């Protein structure tokens, strides 16, 4: 078995256990629901990154701004040289989203805990409710790189192009249009259900094993190549709000080493609400948008 393309972006739970007191490392738990996760117990020394509050703009729908990113890094006592080690609730989806976001703002050394929070608890490793405090740092304003992000017009432009591949990482029920969002997420619903035309459905969880660690590289390669998601193409991943697709973006970019992968974080909650964009829904008659 060959190694992942960029193994340096993954750390094991064993590695993390040995680096809990490493001053060059900042461990961050990225949660969608901190009340159900971080606040009940977390890895000793880990700081909370609340996905809704810290990674997203509080008013408009967007990731945090460059200034907000700088403020977050400074509050967490991070410098450009710090190794950020990310894990989180919901099986590392939101940690992967934070990885993608922090990469947009150019932080160099970011790593994901392989197996995440679930594996840490499975191994009965130490947990605490203590919240760490850090000395505020000065973090220079970065130059944002939007090359790993895709927006709706860009997705529309690649429809039907053989040099691109769209990967819908949602569940088969979401892909088929049987559901657009679970009922408990009313603000993530869409006016239309189905998927973006031409997308292949490879649910995010197919990239991981029973213990939430990533599958070996040869299995990952087979998984994506067999569905036409190959390294010679430009790839766009999407889900409903962009966090599960961050997980797959991470797999394709860092574990398989694909050169051109972008995450469409607008995802189905944008596409399924947009007027005039084409939608593919098995069993439903295809609707061609009326030209403007």
């Amino acid at each position, binding site marked *: 078995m060959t190694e992942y393309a960029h193994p340096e972006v993954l750390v094991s739970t064993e590695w993390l256990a040995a680096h809990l007191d490493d001053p060059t490392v900042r461990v961050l738990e990225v949660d969608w629901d901190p009340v159900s996760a971080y606040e009940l117990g977390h890895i000793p020394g880990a700081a909370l990154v609340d996905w809704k509050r810290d990674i997203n703009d509080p008013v408009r729908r967007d990731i945090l701004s460059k200034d907000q990113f700088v403020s977050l890094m400074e509050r967490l006592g991070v410098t450009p040289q710090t190794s950020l080690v990310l894990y989180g609730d919901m099986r590392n989806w939101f940690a992967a989203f934070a990885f993608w976001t922090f990469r947009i703002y150019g932080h160099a050394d970011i790593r994901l805990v392989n197996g995440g929070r679930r594996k840490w608890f499975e191994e009965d490793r130490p947990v605490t409710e203590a919240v760490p405090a850090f000395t505020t740092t000065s973090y220079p304003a970065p130059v944002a790189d939007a090359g790993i992000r895709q927006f709706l017009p860009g997705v529309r432009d690649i429809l039907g192009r053989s040099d691109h591949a769209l990967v819908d990482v949602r569940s088969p029920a979401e892909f088929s249009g049987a559901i657009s969002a679970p009922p408990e997420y009313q603000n993530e619903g869409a006016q239309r259900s189905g998927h973006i035309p031409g997308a292949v459905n490879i649910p995010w*969880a197919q990239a991981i094993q029973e213990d939430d660690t990533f599958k070996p590289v040869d299995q990952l390669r087979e998984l994506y190549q067999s569905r036409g998601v190959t390294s010679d193409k430009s790839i766009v991943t999407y889900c409903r709000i962009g966090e599960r697709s961050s997980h797959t973006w991470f797999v394709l970019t860092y574990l398989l080493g694909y050169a051109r992968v972008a995450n469409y974080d607008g995802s189905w909650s944008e596409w399924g609400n947009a007027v005039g964009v084409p939608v593919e829904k098995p069993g439903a008659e295809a609707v061609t948008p009326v030209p403007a």
Partner: protein
Amino acid sequence: MEPSHLDLTTAEEECGDSAMGRVRRAYATLAPGERLEVVTGVAEHLFGIRAWCRRVGGEVLEESREGGCTRLVLRRPAASAS
């Protein structure tokens, strides 16, 4: 009266509520004295359920292993928070 039942072993592919979120929602529907049976095979869930019950005053009446899963029975006491 039979306890309400919540199975956390189902897949999380759809990005629905978190396991603990589901427990909290199900617990919130209990009347004082009613019970909730939760089944999970995930240690993270077990830790979260126990810790959350301690926090809100919920009682863990039973805990048993069945195959690869753990079955917990929680009870909402007369004056607990949710």
